[in-house]
Structure formats: structure tokens, C-alpha cells
């Protein structure tokens, strides 16, 4: 397919919003049948490109350059002309499938409408086609589901329907803008699978926009890396991941935590600094301020995108020097903090056994009556020892955050027991509870929402100290020291949170938690809102602080790669119940529970070689609703293992709730038929 003309050719595309450049001279070529991955951090302009191709940018945007579809210029074409192309020859899959469907029309009708907008066929035939398409994207009972409304679909099903709609007219070009970012990993694996199937079935070329290197590695044929509104490197996927020639690409690969543990010390290689704000670009190469190789020439003028090999373009003067370099050769690697590998009898800072929390479902306006219960947490066990990191892993709705808040609330749980620092919270007096509050601190997911916008950084950090009755002057004296500890300028103490970048804000949140010298820090998805290059710095900081201060972390996350990087032990929850727990290495390399296996196999690895040859355990369907009380094993409806069992064994899954059973030392799994299965490495 190499020689033929590209189906979509973007030349020198420039987009500016109110004088601020978002896209600065982008060249792209999309060949028939190929998948081009467009990867970059937030604000790099990748979504803007997708919208510019469709002509969907708001009027406030100034666009120049050329976008040609099969040689026909699209830029400057009227809305009527573009409308004939949109959904017909170019189709888009959006990030948020809920807002991409009209809530008041049936899914099937909306797909049929797309077909009828471009084809002269009867309403009936269009409906039939819609049902076929829903079947293609793997929606069970497509005929019945076509009559459903968007809100009746789960997130994953909506995204499938979105894909069905996008391929309805067999387009030449499919634009997928972060199609799986809003989804859980197991659902993401399903949707990516469907996307690939649909793309192959229609033979469309696909532009896949994503921030996730793993998704790109598994799906794309060629990759374009964007930074500050420009493409800085393009190469075939294998070459890009194996031999990147732009320091930014290299840094990005080094900064991603890897599910298989990666190589070396386990410390990530963060890219120093933060991406430049649009409108405040440095002169010269926009990556120069963060690049350890940059010299005066780099800072003087922006390097053009030049050809390095046949299909490998790079915008860097130093590309030749980077031949065969590893991330750690270019970027400074932080020192590995030595964690004293203490004995197993270290004191426990947290022990949770059989935690239960239900929320009532209420109905009625004036007189509320209980019509049911949400079993949010239904048997979670946790054990965190001093100086250890326990990761609590699960998909959204699995009860992770509820469990956290139950622990932090320090009041008697509905069921089970919580012991913090050896004290059972059920019998605490007010004074004891207040004392414990000072020894357990929390860092939240969204660093913007968790910092009071009306308080200065100094005020925010001093708050827990003041709450513990420390004198104001003493608290203020400690602030600069804490800021230095988390890698911020002490001079910034009188600024407000909105003046900081996301990574810096999260560091403020960490400084606040550390101010009272806690024993246990609860981290609720602390890096999920951050870009990869910034996330690596925060993860390294957390590891260093743990080693220096002997902290114990309870780390809640849905991102298993991050967990692999930071945690010592892991506890996997499904629908409010712990299904497997043990040392990270052990659980990740020899997962026993089928859910853990599926979860691990669903996480894409940022390594195209391994990623494409791994064993896949695809889960069917969505997690069931937590409002039902389950008998037996709650995972059996989606369990790939259950389906293979003999009749008598199946009966056991239906009847009997699996109890956590120790397998190796410290490795616990709640499955009747647990057996290890390696899912990380490529299959031989």
C-alpha cells in the first residue's frame, strides 16, 4: 500500500484561537487502510487537528493550510459541501459517547438517520442496516437494543454504538478522538477490539488520537507524536517504540510506568518541567527548555521536520546522537531510594476485615421510602503494614472510594471491622479519633478540586497543622520546608492554587498531607488526572517520600501500570469484594483469579512487539449493577473460566460464595477454581 496516494493529506495546518496558536504547521498523510496514531499530552493540539479536518472548529478559530480528501480540498468548502462528507466519507468517534447521542431518540433511529442522510434508501432498510451494524460491533440482541434510548446503554455499549454509527456509511476516513479514555480497562479492551474489527471490515483509514501510548502501541500502524502544536516525530509503530529519535518521544516512553515492570530500577524517567502553555511558547525548539541535550542552536530556531529514514521523520537537530539511546541515557534518572526491606512482622497501620457499606435507594418526594440498596462495599479486606504501599485496584463502581471514605471516616462500619494503628475505630472516643485523624492523611484525585481556590498555598498546607492545634507561627514556619520537600519553590507560598500546573498542584496536596507527619497516607487516584511526563515525577516523589519518611500508603487506582510501579502489595476488588490480594510481583506475574487475569490482559503495554502477541482475556458484557444481591460468585456471569467448567463445578460457582483462600504465602484469591495464568508476556 506504500506507493498509492494518501486518502487524507493535511498540509501545513495551522489553527489559532484568538491569536493563540493551538496547531502550528502540521503535515499528515493517511493512507488507505492504515491506522495512524496521533499521540501527545493534553494541550498539544491533537484533538484540534481532528476537528479541523471535519471543519467542526468554532468560528473563533482561524484555520490555514490545506486538508485534502482524495485530492479534493476541504478547507474553505461550505458547510453544505462538508455535511455531505461528514458521516459519509469521513466519520468521527468522540471521546464522550453520552454527549454524542441525542438523548431523546432511539439508538437505532439515530444510526438509521446517518445512513438516510447520505443514501436514498427506505426507512425500513436503514433500520435493518442499523441492526446489522449493532451486531457488527458486538451488541447482544441488536434488534431489541436498537429500540433503546442512549441512557439505557452503558458507557461501553454507547461507545460501540458510536462506532457502529461512524462506520454506517463505510467511510474512507475514521477519526477516533480518545475513543476509550472515559472507559474502564476491560471495556476499553472490548471497544478497541471492536474499533479494529470495524476498521478492517470497512477498509477505512483511521486517525486514532490518544494520550495513551499503550493504546497506540496495540492499534496503530504508524505513529505521529505531537508536542506544543507540532508533530515532532513520525515513524512506523515498531520503529518508534524501539528506536525513537526525538528526546521528547524517548522521554515519553521512559515516563510511562509499565505493567510488566519494565527494565532497570523501577524508577521512572520523568521529563523535567511541564509542557508550555499555548501562547507562551519558548523561542526556538519548543521542547528545548525541558531537553537535557538542548544547546544554543536549539534555542535559536525551531528545527524543521526532516527525513531520517524512508518513513521516519523527526524534528530534532540531535536525532543522530540518539541512535540506540535509552530514556535514562538522556534524561536524569532520580536515585533509587533504598527502602529498608523490613521483616514481615512490622506493625500494621491499617487492617480492614469484611468491610460492608450499603446505601439506601430512596423513592418519593415528601416521604422517602427505601426501595432497595446499593451494595457499594460488600466484603473488602485490607492490610497495610508500616512503610508499605498497598494498592487497591478495581474498575469504576467497584467500591474503592467508598471503602476509603469509610476508613477515613473513623466511625464504626456497617459490617466488618476497621483497625487504624492498632485501634478498632468502633470504640473510639472523640479525643482518640482526633488523634488518629492527625496520623492518617489523604491526597485526592483532582488536584484542582481538592485545594480551596480561595486560600494561599501556605494556608492550604498549614491547615492540618492548625487543625491539630499547632500555633500559627510554628505552622507558617514549617511551610517552606514542606514545599521544598515536595520539590516546589518555597517562595511560591503566597500564591493561589490556580497559578500552578496540575503536577505542581498535586505536589501541594501531598505537602498538605505530609505536614502533620502522618503514618498512613491514603492516595485516591493521585496521578490519574496528570499527563504522563508529569505523572512520572509525582510517582517518583511518592516513592522517595515513602523511603525517607517511612510512610505507609493506601493507594487507590484503576491504572494497573501505575500500581506495578509504586505498590508493594495489591488488593483487587470486583463489585465491592476483594477477589485477590498479594505481593504485586506475585499477583501480576501469576494472577490466580480470572478477573485479575482479564484486568491485567486488558491493560495495553506501550510496546508494540509484546502488545500484539499477548494472550488476551476479553470479558463479555459490563459489570452487573451493585443494586442486586448476588448469590454465589458475583463474577461468574462474565467469567471466562466459568464458561469452560463442567456442569457440577458450575453449580458450585452459583451456590457458594468463594472465600479468600491463601495460595502461596500472602497470596490470596477468592475463586473456587483458581489457577495461575501468565498474561503479561508475549505468547510463545
Amino acid at each position, binding site marked *: 500500500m506504500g506507493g498509492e496516494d494518501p486518502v487524507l493529506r493535511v498540509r501545513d495546518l495551522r489553527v489559532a484561537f484568538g491569536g493563540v496558536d493551538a496547531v502550528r504547521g502540521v503535515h499528515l498523510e493517511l493512507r488507505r487502510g492504515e491506522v495512524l496514531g496521533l499521540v501527545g499530552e493534553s494541550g498539544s493540539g491533537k484533538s484540534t487537528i481532528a476537528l479541523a479536518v471535519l471543519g467542526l472548529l468554532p468560528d473563533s478559530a482561524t484555520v490555514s493550510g490545506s486538508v485534502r480528501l482524495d485530492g479534493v480540498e476541504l478547507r474553505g468548502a461550505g458547510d453544505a459541501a462538508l455535511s455531505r462528507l461528514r458521516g459519509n466519507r469521513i466519520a468521527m468517534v468522540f471521546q464522550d459517547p453520552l454527549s454524542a447521542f441525542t438523548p431523546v431518540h432511539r439508538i437505532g433511529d439515530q444510526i438509521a438517520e446517518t445512513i438516510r442522510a447520505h443514501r436514498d434508501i427506505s426507512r425500513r432498510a436503514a433500520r435493518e442496516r442499523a441492526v446489522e451494524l449493532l451486531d457488527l460491533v458486538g451488541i447482544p440482541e441488536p434488534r431489541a437494543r436498537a429500540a433503546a434510548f442512549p441512557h439505557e446503554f452503558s458507557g461501553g455499549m454507547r461507545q460501540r454504538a458510536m462506532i457502529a454509527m461512524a462506520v454506517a456509511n463505510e467511510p474512507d476516513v475514521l477519526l477516533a478522538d480518545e475513543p476509550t479514555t472515559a472507559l474502564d480497562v476491560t471495556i476499553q479492551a472490548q471497544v478497541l477490539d471492536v474499533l479494529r474489527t470495524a476498521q478492517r471490515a470497512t477498509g477505512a483509514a483511521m486517525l486514532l488520537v490518544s494520550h495513551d501510548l499503550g493504546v497506540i502501541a496495540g492499534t496503530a500502524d504508524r505513529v505521529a507524536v505531537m508536542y506544543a502544536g507540532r508533530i515532532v516525530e513520525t515513524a512506523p509503530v515498531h520503529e518508534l517504540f524501539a528506536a525513537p529519535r526525538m528526546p521528547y518521544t524517548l522521554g515519553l516512553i521512559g515516563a510511562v510506568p509499565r505493567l510488566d515492570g519494565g527494565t532497570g530500577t523501577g524508577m521512572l524517567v520523568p521529563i523535567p518541567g511541564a509542557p508550555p502553555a499555548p501562547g507562551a511558547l519558548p523561542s526556538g525548539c519548543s521542547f528545548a527548555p525541558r531537553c537535557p541535550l538542548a544547546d544554543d542552536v536549539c534555542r535559536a530556531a525551531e528545527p524543521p521536520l526532516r527525513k531520517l529514514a524512508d518513513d521516519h521523520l523527526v524534528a530534532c537537530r540531535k536525532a543522530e546522537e540518539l541512535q540506540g539511546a535509552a530514556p535514562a541515557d538522556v534524561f536524569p534518572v532520580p536515585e533509587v531510594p533504598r527502602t529498608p526491606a523490613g521483616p514481615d512482622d512490622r506493625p500494621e497501620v491499617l487492617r480492614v476485615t469484611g468491610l460492608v457499606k450499603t446505601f439506601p435507594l430512596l423513592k418519593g418526594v415528601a416521604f422517602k421510602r427505601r426501595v432497595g440498596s446499593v451494595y457499594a462495599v460488600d466484603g473488602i479486606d485490607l492490610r497495610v503494614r508500616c512503610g508499605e504501599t498497598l494498592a487497591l485496584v478495581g474498575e469504576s463502581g467497584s467500591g474503592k472510594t467508598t471503602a476509603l471514605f469509610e476508613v477515613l471516616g473513623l466511625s464504626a462500619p456497617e459490617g466488618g471491622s476497621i483497625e487504624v494503628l492498632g485501634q478498632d475505630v468502633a470504640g473510639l472516643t472523640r479525643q482518640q479519633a482526633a488523634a488518629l485523624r492527625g496520623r492518617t492523611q489523604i491526597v485526592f484525585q483532582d488536584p484542582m478540586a481538592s485545594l480551596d481556590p480561595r*486560600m494561599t498555598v501556605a494556608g492550604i498546607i498549614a491547615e492540618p497543622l492548625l487543625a491539630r492545634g499547632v500555633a500559627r507561627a510554628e505552622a507558617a514556619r514549617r511551610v517552606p520546608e514542606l514545599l521544598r520537600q515536595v520539590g516546589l519553590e518555597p517562595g511560591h*507560598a503566597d500564591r493561589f492554587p490556580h497559578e500552578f500546573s496540575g503536577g505542581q498542584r498535586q505536589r501541594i496536596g501531598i505537602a498538605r498531607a505530609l505536614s502533620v507527619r502522618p503514618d498512613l497516607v491514603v492516595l485516591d487516584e493521585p496521578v490519574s488526572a496528570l499527563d504522563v511526563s508529569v505523572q512520572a515525577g509525582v510517582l517518583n516523589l511518592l516513592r522517595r517520600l515513602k523511603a525517607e519518611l517511612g510512610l505507609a500508603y493506601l493507594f487507590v487506582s484503576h491504572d494497573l501500570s501505575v500500581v506495578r510501579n509504586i505498590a508493594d502489595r495489591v488488593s483487587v476488588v470486583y463489585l465491592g469484594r476483594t477477589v485477590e490480594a498479594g505481593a504485586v510481583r506475585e499477583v501480576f506475574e501469576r494472577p490466580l483469579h480470572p478477573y485479575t487475569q482479564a484486568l491485567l490482559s486488558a491493560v495495553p503495554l506501550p510496546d508494540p512487539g509484546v502488545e500484539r502477541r499477548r494472550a488476551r482475556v476479553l470479558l463479555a458484557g459490563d459489570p452487573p449493577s451493585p443494586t442486586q444481591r448476588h448469590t454465589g460468585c458475583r463474577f461468574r456471569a462474565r467469567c471466562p473460566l466459568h464458561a469452560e467448567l463442567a456442569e457440577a463445578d458450575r453449580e458450585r460457582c452459583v451456590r457458594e460464595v468463594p472465600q479468600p483462600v491463601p495460595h502461596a504465602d500472602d497470596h490470596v484469591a477468592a475463586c473456587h477454581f483458581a489457577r495461575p495464568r501468565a498474561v503479561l508476556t508475549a505468547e510463545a
Partner: protein
Amino acid sequence: MTTAVVADADAVVENRPAGRASVVLRHFLRNRSALAGAAVLVLLFVLAFCGPLACHWSYTDIDYTALRRGPSARHWWGTNGIGQDVFAQTVRGLQKSLLIGLLVAVFSTALASLVGACAGYFGGWTDRALMFLVDLLLVFPSFLVIAIISPRLKAGGWIAFVGLLAVFGWMITARVVRSMTLSLKEREFVRAARFMGVGPFRIIWRHVLPNVASFLIIDATIAVGGAVMSETALSYFGFGVQPPDVSLGTLIADGTGSAVTYPWMFFFAAGLLVLFVLAVNLVGDGLRDAFDPTARRRTGRRG
């Protein structure tokens, strides 16, 4: 001048970061229009309380030789229909109205924020009880209640009257504050403070109220004008400020009829009221911007 101060502050920050109060003050002082508003307010107070000393007529004096005379050297702002000096009367009225307007606004906003924030933050029975009180006060015809009670409070004078106006002027604000608190309560920074062991009233003081401050300040500035006007309405019906005592409201009410024929009897009092409300609004806007760190971006940081 201001930039020099800021540079100094940055230099010493190493030892002792500035607290919120000093940051707010610093940003308030940098806002020109707010400073102008504050200056006008100060001047109005000076006029109201020093004016009577400069003028040899008292507000009760009657000059039978000068009825409805225009401004002159003898009567600076002219005289009214029965020969009273308009300047003396206006500054006397200004004293009353400044105090009534500001105090009613401050009291009612304070009460509203306290009740609203407590109801929203604590929820449950506290919420139900407080909201029942609010609804009760809302359905009572406040005008009637004030009319009945105020004659009995004659001894308390205008301070009792301020209390009455404040007590009947806070309910709607409280409802809004309550709903804003309900959404703030779920925000992570409030939750974070709770998990850190910060007490409930401290959270309300440090986290909830500063985040509803924009609304409270705007509401208070509007309440100032409203209080002056409702005092007028009550005075017109014979409650509140009673002759021979005067307020800006009564003066405006009396002068309205002659606004075209004898403008000095109306326009001095009306002009001062407009000036007063305008100044309060400027100060309010300045305070709101000073409290809201994001507002400063738009006006440009550090010059």
C-alpha cells in the same frame, strides 16, 4: 509604590508567607475604583458627622424669614417649605441613612450566611429547623410585623429599628447560601478538611464562607440601598424615623413633589443617596475581586 511593596513581600516570604487577610488587603489596595469608593464613603461619613458642626443652623431650626429660598451664603443648600435649612437637614438625614444602610446590610448578611451555611453544612434536623424558621419569616408579612412592633421599641431608637430591618431582610439570602453550601460541602477540599480533623465551624469559616463571599458581598451592597429605601417606606407610614428627626429617605419623600419647582429640596438628598450606594458598590466589587484570586488574572497581575 505598590510594586515595591510586592517585591519586598516576595523577598521576605522565605520566613513567613503572607496570610489570606494580608493578601486580600494588598489586592484591595491595588484596585483603584475600590479605593475611590472607600474614599467617597469616608468623605460621606465626615460630611455627615462634621457637617452639623460647620453649619450654624440645626436641623430643627426654622428660619421664618426664608421660606423655599434657593441656595445662598446664608443657607448653603437653601431652605424648605417651613424655613428649615436643607444642608443641616440633609447631613442629619445622611447620618441616619449611612448607619441604617450599612448596619442593616452587615447584620442581615451576617445572619444569612451563618444560618444558611449551618443549615447547608450540617443538614438533617439542623437544616430542617432552620429552613422552617426561614419559611416562617418569609410568609409573615414583615411590613405588618415591623409596623406593630416598632412603636413598642421607641425606647431603643433607631438601633432597634436597624435590628428589625435586619431580622426581616436575610431569609432569601440564607436560602441561596444554603444551596451554595450544599454543593460546596461535596467539593473535595471541604472533604479533605473534614478528614484532616478540622472542626465544622472552622470549615464554615475558612472554606465555605470565602467561597460564597462573591455572592454575599454583591448581596450586601444591594441590601444597603434596599435598607435605606425600606426605612423610607416605613417612615412614610409613620414608623421608623419620626419627625422632627429626618433621614435621607424622609427628605427624598418630602422633596419629591417639589423636585421640579424647588430642585434643591430634592436633589441634594437624592444625589447623596446615589453617591452612597455607588460608593458601596465600588467597595463591594473591589472586595469581591480581592477575595477571588482568579478574578485578578483578568485585571492583570502586578501591573
